[in-house]
C-alpha cells in the first residue's frame, strides 16, 4: 500500500504542477513508481491510479495533447482541484459533523471525508438521541444534484418510459426524494427511487426557468396534485382522530368547524379526486366526506367496489 500511496501522491503533484496535458508515456517515464519495463503492468497500475483519483473527486481530464488530436493526455486543473473557499469556523464544522452523524442517506452514515477536506473537526461520536434516515441511493442523488447545479440535461428510465429532463433541483418530502425538472410538456416531479439508467449531458445544456420553485412544486398534498376542475370538499373527522387529521392536513383548511361532540369538519380544495379519495380512506371509518354530493357518491362507489 505504501508504494501505491507514494506513486499516487507523486502523480498528483506532477499533474497539479504540469500546467498542460501529459501523455501516459511521459507519466510512465517521469513520475516515480511506475513500471518502465512491462507495458501491461504499467497499464494496470496507471488505470488503477486514475480510478483512485477520480474516486477522491479529483477532476482528472483527458484531452488531446497536440493540434493533430491523435495523441491523448491527462490534465488536472488546479482551480478545479481545490476546494472553494468556505470560510467555515470550527464551530460551524462541528455543527456539520454532528448533522452528518445523525442523518443517514441511503442507510449510510456519511460525512467524515467531507469534514476532513473542509478542515477537520473533533471527530468524536457518541450516542445521539436523534436520527434521521433519508433513504435513496446517494450516488444517484449526487448525479442529479450536480446536473441541477451545472445545468446538464439528464436522461433516465422512469417506470417503462425514457425521459429527458432539465433538472432544476431535488427535494425530500414525506420519506422520499423527488427531482423537479422541466420538460417539453411543462414542469414535472419524479420520484428519485424510480429513476434508473441515469445519464447526464454537457454542462450548460439548458437555461434555468426562473419561475420554477423547487420547494413550491413539492409542497402539494395528494389531493392538490392534479389539474381537474377544483371542487371544495368537506370532511368530518371523529373526535378520536380529529387532532391527528388536522396535523396530517398540513395547511389551513378553507373552513374549520369544531362541533360540540368533539368531531371536526374541514373544507379543502380538491383538484385530484382519486388521490383525495385514497387519502380520506386512509382514515378508515373515522372520516366521512359530507359533500359535495358527487364526491360523496364517488367515495361510496369506491368503497362498494373494493376487493
Amino acid at each position: 500500500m505504501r508504494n501505491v500511496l507514494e506513486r499516487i501522491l507523486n502523480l498528483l503533484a506532477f499533474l497539479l504542477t504540469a500546467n498542460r496535458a501529459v501523455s501516459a508515456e511521459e507519466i510512465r517515464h517521469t513520475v516515480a513508481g511506475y513500471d518502465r519495463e512491462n507495458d501491461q503492468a504499467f497499464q494496470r497500475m496507471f488505470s488503477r491510479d486514475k480510478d483512485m483519483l477520480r474516486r477522491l473527486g479529483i477532476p482528472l481530464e483527458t484531452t488531446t495533447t497536440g493540434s493533430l488530436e491523435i495523441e491523448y493526455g491527462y490534465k488536472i486543473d488546479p482551480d478545479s482541484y481545490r476546494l472553494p473557499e468556505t470560510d467555515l469556523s470550527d464551530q460551524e464544522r462541528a455543527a456539520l459533523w454532528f448533522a452528518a452523524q445523525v442523518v443517514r442517506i441511503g442507510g449510510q452514515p456519511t460525512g467524515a471525508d467531507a469534514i476532513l477536506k473542509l478542515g477537520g473537526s473533533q471527530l468524536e461520536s457518541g450516542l445521539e438521541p436523534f436520527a434521521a434516515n433519508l433513504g435513496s441511493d446517494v450516488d444517484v442523488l449526487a448525479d442529479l444534484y450536480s446536473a441541477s447545479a451545472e445545468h446538464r440535461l439528464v436522461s433516465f428510465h422512469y417506470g417503462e418510459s425514457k425521459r429527458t429532463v432539465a433538472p432544476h433541483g431535488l427535494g425530500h418530502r414525506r420519506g422520499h426524494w423527488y427531482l423537479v425538472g422541466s420538460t417539453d410538456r411543462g414542469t414535472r416531479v419524479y420520484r428519485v427511487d424510480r429513476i434508473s439508467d441515469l445519464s447526464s449531458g454537457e454542462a450548460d445544456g439548458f437555461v434555468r426557468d426562473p419561475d420554477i420553485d423547487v420547494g413550491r412544486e413539492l409542497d402539494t398534498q395528494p389531493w392538490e396534485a392534479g389539474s381537474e376542475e377544483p371542487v371544495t370538499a368537506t370532511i368530518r373527522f371523529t373526535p378520536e382522530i380529529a387532532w391527528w387529521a388536522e396535523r396530517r392536513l398540513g395547511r389551513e383548511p378553507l373552513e374549520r368547524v369544531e362541533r360540540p361532540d368533539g368531531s371536526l369538519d374541514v373544507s379543502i380544495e380538491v383538484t385530484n379526486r382519486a388521490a383525495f379519495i385514497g387519502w380520506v380512506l386512509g382514515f378508515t371509518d373515522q372520516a366521512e366526506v359530507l359533500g359535495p354530493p358527487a364526491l360523496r357518491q364517488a367515495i361510496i362507489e369506491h368503497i362498494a367496489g373494493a376487493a
Partner: protein
Amino acid sequence: MSDRTASRLTRILAMLPWVIANPGADVDEVCERFGYTRKELIRDLDLVFVCGLPGYGPGDLMVAYVEEDRVVVDTADYFAQAPRLTAAEGLALLASGMTVMATGQGSDVLASAVDKLGTALVPEGHDILTVDVSAEHDLGSVLRSAVIDGKVVEIVYTTLSRGDTTTRLIEPWTVFTSLGNWYVSAFCRTSQAERIFRLDRIQRVIETKERFEPPAAPPEPEVRYTPSEEDVVATIRLRRPAFWVSDYYPVEIVSEDGDSRTVRFSAYDPSVAAQLLVRLGGDATLLEGDEVRAAVDQLRARLLARYSL
C-alpha cells in the same frame, strides 16, 4: 485495500493544507482535528517526505516531519489547498445539515454553516436542494429530553388500524425519522416488548419521575417489518394504477403480466391489508386470504354504515 488507500489519501490531502495554513501546528491539535493517533500522523508525514516532483532530489521532495511537538511541512505548495468535495460528499453533508435544521433541532451556527456550504458548492445560489422532514416539534423535544434523562414516560397512543386509543408506559430509546414519519423506539412496559411508536399518533406525553436503565446498545433506529409465523397472508392482484403498492409495502411479487401484478402481502394484522384494499377500490382484487377477506367485509360494512347505507 482500495478503501483504505482512499481514506488515507483523503486524510493526507486534507491535513497538509491545514498544516501549511497553520505553521507550527501542535501535534495534538492536528491529531484531534484529523482523527489521527500520533503514530499514524508520523507514518503519513514520513510518506509525504519521500514524495514530490520529478527529479526527486532533496529540493524536489516535500518536507514533512515532527519537531518538538510541532508539525513542519514545507515545499508542498501544490497541496496547499484541499481537494474539493465529491458531488456525493457535498450533497450528503448539505442535506444532513438541512435535515437537522428542518427538525427544529438546529442552531444558528448550523444555519450559517449550511448557508456557507451551499454557496460554496453552488455559487449561483439557486435553491436546488430542499429538505423537509416535517418535525413534530413539541412531542419530539419532550421525548428527546426523556431519552437523554432516561425517564419513563406515559403516552396516549392511537392505533389507527383498530381505531383504539391506549395509555402505555414506555422507556424511550431514540427519536428518529424515517420514510416521512417520526418515531420513538422504546421498551413498552405495558406490552413488555420492544416497540416503535409513530409520533403523530401520540396524543399526549406525560412525564414520570421514574428512571430506567437504557440498553447498552439500543437497536438501530429503523422501521422494519419482520415477517413472522403468525402473520396473515393475502394474495392480491393489482391493476396498473396500484403498482405503487409493491414499492411501498414489503410484498413478494408472485407473477406479473403487462397490466396486472400479483403480490403476496403479509402483515401481523389483517386490518392493515384490508385498509389498503378498500383504499385501492377497483384497482386491486383479493385472490386468497380468508382472514383478510373477513376484515375487508367488516371495514366496508363499517364505512357504508358511516355513510348510512
